């Protein structure tokens, strides 16, 4: 009987070594450890054996069973590992196939840039103040120290709205009382008057950002547009100087462009500020060495600014003997053109998806 068990064990172990797939493993288990296997035959024949033989054969058969089970377990692990290894080796995809995409939404690039600007201004204490796009000549020009027929009006070619001219005026378009605002500065007067109304004797200080669409009578070309966004900053208070204006602009430019950005202030002219300045930032494309973006000047003109003109303060309800202030204005589209090398300003309102998708 012992021989038979040895025979069973040997045959089973031998056949196990050639088994390489999970199905064969299972078949082997049925053959060698299943109900009708030779080994199970030995167990079921135990009853026929004598009392003396029974424990001996039983023990021997059990040892064989344990050995076969252990071998099976080991083999099964090997087979599984081999199968996995094979499948890992065979199962691979072309990772260079394009991913499955989605139609997603985006903000218009101008909105994105407006937000960048307004976010920085908000941190500096300048809160958003918006006003209307169709304005009166009074708010767009006169209260901002552009008297009728002032030559400075030539700096801002204007779209006028059809309206009957007020009595007594000539036929000149400059007399037209309603127009498309040429800058967001009418908001300066709206804001000052609103704040001053709250306490006309001692108006509160002001720090606001004025964003919005502006309009100029220009031919539409790669460099000029009939509409564009502007953001202005305005600060009015009892203790505000040109040196503060320089400090504020420097802070803003550091945040907007780069920490090391060099600046220069050039004397300039705007009717509603005095002194006035244009601010150039060192070209961030070439580092000031001269390139196409800065037209070989090394500088990029990025904003205009100045101390609020006494007449404007007065028109806003702030006494220029007590109050002073500064204002500065810039163009988000121009900033994007510099920042992202947009060569054609017409892209902005063209709304071509092939442009919009790049932002």
């Amino acid at each position, binding site marked *: 009987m012992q021989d038979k068990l040895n025979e069973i064990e040997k045959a089973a172990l031998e056949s196990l070594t050639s088994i390489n797939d999970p199905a064969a493993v299972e078949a082997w288990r049925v053959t060698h450890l299943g109900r009708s296997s030779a080994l199970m035959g030995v167990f079921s024949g135990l009853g026929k054996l004598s009392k003396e033989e029974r424990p001996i054969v039983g023990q021997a058969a059990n040892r064989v069973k344990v050995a076969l089970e252990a071998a099976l377990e080991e083999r099964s692990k090997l087979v599984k590992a081999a199968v996995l290894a094979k499948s890992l080796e065979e199962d691979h995809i072309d990772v260079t196939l394009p991913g499955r995409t989605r139609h997603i939404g985006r903000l218009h690039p101008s909105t994105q840039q407006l937000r960048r600007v307004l976010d920085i201004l908000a941190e500096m204490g300048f809160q958003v103040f*918006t006003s209307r796009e169709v304005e009166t000549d009074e708010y767009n020009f006169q209260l901002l120290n552009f008297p009728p027929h002032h030559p400075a009006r030539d700096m801002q070619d204007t779209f006028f709205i059809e309206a009957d001219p007020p009595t007594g005026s000539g036929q000149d378009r400059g007399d037209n009382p309603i127009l498309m605002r040429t800058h967001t500065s009418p908001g300066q007067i709206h804001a000052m008057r609103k704040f001053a109304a709250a306490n006309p004797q001692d108006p509160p200080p002001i720090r606001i950002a004025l964003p919005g669409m502006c309009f100029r009578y220009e031919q539409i070309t790669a460099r000029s547009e009939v509409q564009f966004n502007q953001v202005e900053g305005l600060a009015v208070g009892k203790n505000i100087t040109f040196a503060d204006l320089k400090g504020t602009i420097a802070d803003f430019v550091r945040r907007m462009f780069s920490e090391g950005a060099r600046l220069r202030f050039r004397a300039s002219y705007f009717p509603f500020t005095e002194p006035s300045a244009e601010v150039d930032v060192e070209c961030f494309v070439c580092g000031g060495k001269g390139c196409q973006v800065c037209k070989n000047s090394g500088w990029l003109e990025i904003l205009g600014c100045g101390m609020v003109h006494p007449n404007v303060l007065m028109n806003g309800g702030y006494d220029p003997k007590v109050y002073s202030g500064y204002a500065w204005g810039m163009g988000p589209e121009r900033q994007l053109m510099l920042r992202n090398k947009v060569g054609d300003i017409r892209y902005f309102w063209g709304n071509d998806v092939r442009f919009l998708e790049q932002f």
Partner: protein
Amino acid sequence: MKIPLSWLKDFIDLDGLPVEDIARKLTLAGMEVDEILYVGLPKPVYKEGEKHEFKTDGIGWDKEKLVVAEIREVKAHPNADKLTLLDLYDGQQDQIVLTGAPNIFHLKGAGKLEKPIKVAYAKEGATLYDGHAEGQVLMTLKRAKIRGVDSYSMTCSEKELGITDESDGIIILDDDAPVGMPLADYMGDAVLDISILPNMARNASVIGIARELAAMLGRELKKSSGQLSVTSNQLSVTSGQSVKELVEIEITDPELNPRFVVGLIRNVEIKPSPYQIQRRLKLAGIRPINNIVDATNYAMLEIGEPLHAFDYDVLKQRAGKKKIKIITRAAKDGEKLTTLDGNTRTLTSMNVLVCDEKGPLSLAGVMGGSESEVYDASKEVLDAVGIETKPDEKLPHGKASVRGTSTVNILLEGAAWNFINIRRTAKQHNLPSEASFRFSRGVHPAMAEGGVSLGLKYMAEWAGGAVAPGLVDAYPLPPKDAVAEITVNDVKRWLGIELTLERISELLSRLEFKCEITPTGHALRITAPSHRMDIGEGLVGVADVLEEIARSYGYDNIPTTTMADALPPQVGNPVHEWEEHLRDLLVAVGLQEVVSYRMTSVEKESRITQYDEYVRLANPIAPEKSVLRRSLIASVLDSLEKNIRYSEAFSFFEIGPVFEPIKNELPNEPRKLAIAITGLREATAWDVQDSPTLDFFDLKGRIELMLSGLRLTNISYTATDSYSSLHPGKAAEVKVNGQVIGAFGELHPLAKEQYELGDSPVLVAEFDLNVMRSIDPTYGIKTIPETPSMYEDIAIIVDESVQAETVEALIRQTGGRSVTDIRLFDLYRDEKIGAGKKSLAYSLTYQAEDKTMTDAEAAAIRNKIVKRLEKEVGAKLRS
């Protein structure tokens, strides 16, 4: 304004200063130099990595290879009829030079020239522009054989030297040009192209720029502006009658014409100006005409006073036996004047005229007139008022009918005009000129006398005439001196710098302001110089002077400080923030923002709207931009149409104002949201094809997400057929708390036909943001239940006419608070359930507030719901 450096150097010593340093000084002080054009002076060469500061163009002239030379004889070329050979001396040796220049050709074979001709001579190896190439192409002069004659050098045209683009003929220099001198030393130049700000009319002149430069550099002007104005007794005076005896002036309105000065020069010979003068004019962008016209232009460029030359004999003839009387007055409405350019202009009372007793002579400060034949005869001289001159016209020498001699007599006008009238006149008649540019920005009346004297001086120098004694000077309205008082504290409060009165005085004196400390010693009394009209009175004057202090001090020298003033209360801007939040929500549901032109046309909008009234532009730039938009959907559809070929799916939104007209008033500018979607629902990929197209419910889903993001509740959707642009069967109005906030649906097939929008349905929406924003949102959230909920599906069959919203409302009402979620998960139509019927399958969530709901409780609610549906909408439970 283009200013040749050589001209500036007449007034200020700029030795030792690189051109770019000069340009930088000017730029920082408000006279922005747009470009530096090198015309002979050495052009800086930037090394790799070195910083540029200005846009530059042009070339420097090699001192060795480009020199003044003289032609001694013009000989025929042995093998070419059209070429000549020049015997030329370059200061060191004789040269033979080949040329085809037409302006030397007539001397061929004339033998040794009596008076040698001075020319610009380029030796072998010189680098120049190619005179025969299109545009500016650099070349280096090389030895060649031309028709058998050795050619190694040349005489230059202006194009070759980069002075102008004139290549027809060689430059003939003035007789006093020193032979052998490097050309760069003789006439090497650099031109600064300077932008003149509207408040700096005083700097639209060489002296103006020189004066600023002197102040910024702390250098002296060679001649101060006072000495610059030549007085008539400095001129060579004849013994003839004085001008006063011959001409009188009547100014009818001094507000329009504060000053009018005339001078007279007799017997001038009209011929070309000296070459150096012509060269400067050309570099300044003005075409030389003849010595008389050039003198007026040259004097104007030099000191900024526009001059007008009249043919004296013509005026005399018109006056007959009487004394010439010049009258200035406003034009009468409807009065006509034919200007030099041949146009007959209908005038209005804002135009100002210079007349004699016979009638108008010129449109003051803008352009001369040619009303009668006599003026035609002297037209070219009248041209001198501006740059609108015609170069090809030669002066008709010897107009015997008028004067019977080959010389002419010139009456020269220098005046001051009201800048508003000049600006309006120039705009009205579209006549921009050098004169109107200056007058419309304000020329100080003090300039008139100096201007006339200077013009006469140049005429006498270049045209050989004799100036009549004296000037006639009508000056009824001298402007008040602009005076401002300024304190140390003003400077500190406005500029943030502390300066003593002495230092302020020093800074302003450089700009020729007169400064004196007031008797109390606390302030500085400042008087503006007589060339400035930009300094105001009172507080404005103080601000004007502060700007001058800042410029003179240097903006760069003012410190950079952090604002110490009180920070106002931070209140934010809820309207703006709400709109930005809305934008974020729309982007999150997959919409692309677009921004359109506010300007459109009625035709474009009428494809989808029918408005009669629009806000109309009085001066539209183009017909398709003639009104302000009334429909935001129209804007978005325009964008969609432009893009339709470029993508398989579009989801556009725009937020912005539309414009509702109110006659003669400012329009309303309500803010709107418009959405348009069309195309494929899913993005096509290599294994995603045949996506269904977007439909009504795609748009509705986005709207639902948007409204839930805005925390709006109590929303209802009602079918509507009252929007002509929407499909009557696929359109809904959106209400919140019963208030309509907008509508959406499929674009009406007839509206869609108006556009090229492809085959897919187009879904559009428009919302009124003012209304939407006025609705209070909900703030709290629902707490998440801690007890388990039960889920159950029920399917019912109802008539097709029963709306989903009704069924859902009934379930909600009946279930009460125990049914916390109702979701339609299937809509099914089939013959088996009957024609005209549909099956709606809902997934319900049951939830007891504070305990676990039992099956029996859920079943009871469910039975109640089913019974209610059976009763109210004839529903049958589907088994």
